[in-house]
Structures are given as C-alpha cells and as structure tokens.
C-alpha cells in the first residue's frame, strides 16, 4: 500500500507542476498500484470538477471547470493529455470556452523500495482564448524533475520545474501579469511543489501540499496551499481538495473534486 501511495503522489506531483493547477493538484493516481505489470500498457480516464473565486487586482470573478483527462502508462513510462471546459465570470462578463490543453510525458529514472525519482515534460497548447482570459495565447514547455520518499504511512514528495513560454520574452507585449485567469502563471518561472500524504487505512489518504511559481524576470511570485482527502483502489479513485491562493492571487479559494477509472 505504501508503494501505491508513493506512485500516486509521484504522478500527483507531476501534474501539480503543470501550471494548470486545474490539470493539476489532482490525484486521481491513488489507483496506480505497484501491482501493475511492467510489460503491459494501461489506460486510465478521469474527470475533475473545480470551482474558484479570484480577485487579482485587475479582474474579480469566479470560474467553474470540467477537465477530462486520459492517461497511458507502461512500465517506467507514462503520458497524459487533458483540457478544461470552463464557465468564467470576469468583471461582470460571463464566457464559456475551453482552456489551454496540456500534454505530459514522464519517466521514472531511478527507484528502490523507499525512494523514487523521475523527470517529466509538460507541453501546453494554446487552445484557450487569450482575449477571454481562458488561455495564455502561446505554447508553454515545462520540463521538471520529481522525487518521492516513502516512510510508511507517510509519503513525502517534492518536485521542481522550469516553465517557459515559447515566444520572445523581450517585453514588447503589454503585461497583464500571470495569465490566464483559470490557471495563471508567468511567462518564465521556476515551478515547485512539496507535499506530504498519510495513509489512514481503508484506502483513504489525507495530505497537504504547497506549490508555486517563482518568476524569472518580470512576473509575480505565486504560492498555493492545499489540503486533500482521497480514496483509491487499484481500479478507481476519488479525491477532493481545497486550495487557497497564498501569494500572487492565482485565486482566493478553489475546490477540486476528481474521480478516475483505470482500464
């Protein structure tokens, strides 16, 4: 069970590196058991529902999102893709639309019974409307590294990555600060995530984590704190998380509920 938690948190950490905390902070990975056959592939499908309120000084409002996700894993390798569908209210205007899409590839580089490390690459595709504050308006590349330390019943995780907009950063564009509203980040930043989860028994886990983005050059430091509870088996998992924007105004408060099924 400890290893199952570990693997779960690993992938959770990976996802949390994605700016889209939406894509993000999601742990539908408690189902990822070490009983997995390394020689066979597995597919999982999940959906997250989130709701948030924000006030970043320029925009005041709220949003609700539905984020389907599909994942593939084989041995040490994995990949996933997700995109959000949002209802956003910003300064009195209500819009509906898709957000930026995220694709992730990750690999476990080294592991033993207690420690697991790996690397990942997230790529964000600008499918969301920049004008409506649903997307960044450009692609992002986000390489990262992560590690997990299992101390049954506790699992500690940490990860760090580099988020970079695939555009010129010469500052010729008018700066609105971190964008988009549904999952803000800087044009160039160091992303980080640290957390801990505890197994309570009966497939139930509770945990908390901090994550954020430290801008490189122009931007705003961002910190999010979250507490979560999750239940998972080898086939299905469900979790809920409450998050607070602690710095940088990514949102005031956000709730995320998620469930996923492995095939």
């Amino acid at each position, binding site marked *: 069970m400890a290893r199952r938690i570990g693997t779960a948190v690993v992938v959770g950490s990976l996802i949390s590196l994605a700016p889209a905390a939406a894509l993000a902070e999601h742990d539908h990975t408690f189902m990822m058991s070490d009983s997995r056959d390394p020689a066979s592939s597995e597919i999982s499908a999940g959906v997250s529902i989130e709701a948030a309120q924000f006030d970043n000084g320029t925009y005041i409002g709220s949003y609700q999102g539905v984020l389907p996700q599909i994942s593939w894993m084989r041995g040490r390798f994995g990949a996933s*893709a997700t995109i959000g569908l949002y209802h956003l209210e*910003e300064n*009195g205007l209500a819009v509906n639309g898709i957000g930026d899409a995220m*694709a992730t590839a990750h690999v476990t580089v080294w592991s033993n019974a207690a420690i697991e490390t790996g690397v990942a690459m997230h790529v964000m595709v600008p499918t969301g*409307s920049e004008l409506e504050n649903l997307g960044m308006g450009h692609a992002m590349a986000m390489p990262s590294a992560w590690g997990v330390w299992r101390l049954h019943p506790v699992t500690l995780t940490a990860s760090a990555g580099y988020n970079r907009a695939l555009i010129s950063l010469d500052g010729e564009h*008018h700066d609105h600060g971190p964008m988009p509203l549904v999952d803000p980040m800087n044009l160039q930043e160091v992303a980080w995530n640290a957390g801990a989860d505890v197994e309570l028994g009966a497939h139930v886990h509770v945990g908390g984590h901090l994550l954020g983005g430290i801008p490189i050059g122009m931007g705003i430091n961002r910190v999010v704190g979250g507490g979560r509870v999750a239940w998972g088996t080898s086939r299905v998992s469900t979790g809920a998380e409450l998050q607070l924007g602690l710095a940088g105004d990514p949102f005031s408060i956000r709730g995320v509920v998620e469930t996923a099924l492995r095939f």
Partner: protein
Amino acid sequence: MRLIALSLFVLAACANSATPTPTMAACPDPDPMSLTWDSFGMQFMTTYCTDCHASDLKHTQRNGAPLYHDYDTLMGVLETPEHVDEYAGSGLTVTNTEMPPSQCPTMPGGSLNRDCPQPTEEERKNLSIWLACEQNRPH
C-alpha cells in the same frame, strides 16, 4: 498511446491564434500634432471604448474590461497605451480587431444588447499613430 497522440494532434489543430499584437506604429518626426486627445483620442474612446473602460464603472459593470484600464481621460489612456494598441490598433504589419467586441451595452455599465460600432481601418491606424505620438508629448 495512439489515442493520446491523436488527442494532441486535435489539440494542436485547435490552437487559438487570436493574439493581441503590438502594431509597432511610429509617430512621424517631427510630430505633426494632427492627432491629439482633443482632435481624435477623446472622440475615439467615447465612441468605441468607454461604455466598459471608464473609471466610474465598478467591476460588475465593466463587461469584462480589466480594472484600471480606463479611457475616459487622456491620463487614463496613457496608463496602458500598449493595451489599446494591441487590442484595437493597426500598423504596417498587423491590424488588431479584438476590440471593440461584437456586443456592447446601450448604456455604460449596462448589459450587452447591441452591436458594437467598429472603427474603420483608417481610424485604427490613426489610433496607433496617435498613441505613439501622445506617449512622447509632455503631460
């Protein structure tokens, strides 16, 4: 894996390409002073912008316009001239038509219930030139 690859292909095909872009318009040298706040800017802003971009509108009345992007005064425009240029201006290489939007309020701060008047191409070019000139003038 093929399903994920197909998903990525579809996502890439759906990439949203509407991006506000600086026009890089330049003020003639010397400044002819033919485009000023009184002769051009105020009328342009009143006609196309201040139904939502006005300092007396609270956030729920702005129909999505960001706070502190208020164009009912010259100094307000000069707080964010790049924003105006990137959303409504026109230059040699680009014409930005993100603003005005398609729907506008009949009264400032009201609901979106009428088609927005749209600037002509010449007005958009003059907007970008005026902004370039105005930023270099003493205030």
